[in-house]
């Protein structure tokens, strides 16, 4: 009978750790790119910018109807060809697996964050806009100091759950032969045959990180509770 033997985990810790770091940095980068770009996409739709708003709407619709793994494939295999055509000589320009992962995740998450922010923008009370008008605040200052901060505060729980999903989705980078936490664990598991231990440890790691993130936002929300209710 097999008994559980976790010593294998201790031995392979550095490898798992580097996998975890990759997952976390991909999540952080995709979050940053996704939020900044997503906010822009949401504002373009909110202001109904001619032509651009239509393009953005299609972009969001397309991204949201395609599995992330497919987008990763596309980027990895099609981007070099497209770039080759653009550069003129027709030869594919290879972009590294890491670069593909970071761009794809950033662009993909932007579509999801933009939807969250777009809905949040519509929920801001009309009176807030009128108060800004009455105070002669410009559109820029109105959105920068009044509207967007309120949207981000109200939408923070949804933004967080989307980010937790993002963190879990980073495991898809295995299709690009990149090694994240889950990837590291799978490789080790196959190497030493300790599948159960490895997958248990990884599950616990995901659980701890995701629930820590939820806790963190719960406490943030408590702190902001007074500032978001009226």
């Amino acid at each position, binding site marked *: 009978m097999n008994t559980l033997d976790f010593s294998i985990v201790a031995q392979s810790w550095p490898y798992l750790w580097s996998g975890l770091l990759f997952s976390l940095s991909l999540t952080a980068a995709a979050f940053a790119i996704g939020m900044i770009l997503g906010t822009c996409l949401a504002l373009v739709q909110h202001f109904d910018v001619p032509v651009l708003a239509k393009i953005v709407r299609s972009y969001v619709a397309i991204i949201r109807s395609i599995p992330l793994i497919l987008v990763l494939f596309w980027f990895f295999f099609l981007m070099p060809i497209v770039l080759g055509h653009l550069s003129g000589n027709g030869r594919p320009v290879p972009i590294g697996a890491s670069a593909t992962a970071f761009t794809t995740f950033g662009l993909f998450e932007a579509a999801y964050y933009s939807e969250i922010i777009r809905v949040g923008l519509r929920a801001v*009370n009309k*009176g*807030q806009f*009128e*108060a800004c*008008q*009455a*105070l*002669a*605040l*410009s559109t820029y*200052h109105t959105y920068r*100091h*009044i509207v967007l*901060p*309120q949207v981000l*505060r109200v939408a923070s729980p949804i933004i967080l759950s989307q980010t937790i999903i993002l963190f879990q989705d980073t495991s898809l980078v295995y299709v690009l032969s990149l090694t994240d936490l889950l990837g590291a664990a799978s490789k080790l598991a196959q190497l030493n045959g300790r599948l159960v231990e490895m997958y248990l440890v990884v599950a616990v790691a995901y659980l701890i990180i995701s629930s820590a993130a939820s806790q963190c936002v719960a406490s943030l929300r408590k702190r*902001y509770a*007074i*500032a*978001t*209710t*009226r």
Partner: protein
Amino acid sequence: MPLDTAGNATPSGSIVVVENLVKRFGAFTALNDINLRVDKGETIVLCGPSGSGKSTLIRCINHIEQHDGGRIVVDGIELSNRMADINSVRCEVGMVFQSFNLFPHLTVAENCMLAPMKVRGISQFEARDRARLLLRKVRIADQADKYPAQLSGGQQQRVAIARALCMQPKIMLFDEPTSALDPEMVKEVLETMVELAKEGMTMVCVTHEMGFAREVADQVVFMDRGSIIEEADPETFFRAPRTERAKGFLNQIIH
């Protein structure tokens, strides 16, 4: 007659001039041929039944609503669709809303400091000083670091008054500032408004508070169905309204 910056003759002292104002919402005419002058230092009380166009009229004065006909001249600037004109008018016109409309994510002090810094371009120091001064004036200096939701309705409305005053406007517009308040808080807000009026602020107030009107109003303007029906000093208006509609309205608010 002196000329204002638009080159139009205005009687000296009039800071708001509304001439033949028309405002429509689709096919519905909310304001029909309104004429109104507000002199410097004057307090005008606007009253009338619900839906008569009181809010719409004062919202046209700072261009939160865009008028469809006639002219509005505020402090020598005629309101057109030019954003520069609209903003210079809005700088001189403070507004207080029925539902306060404070910024919930900013503290009381920050609520007061934002627009003076971003619009008037004053420093944070100066803005903080000014906010402190005006919050003391409305008697909530000790609440400066709280969030709006931590204050009572009356306190919130006084913050809203301070926030508007921090822009150092020449005119203040009030749209039913006390009608969302519990009765015991109405008094504290009215006291603040009375004080302001007595200091010489030019005010246009939509309110049904007759005590307030009696104490400080120079003129009561009665509106019905988008038109001004009656204008008189408060004593005359409340004692002997000329029109049947004003009589009916007064009977209703006295119950």
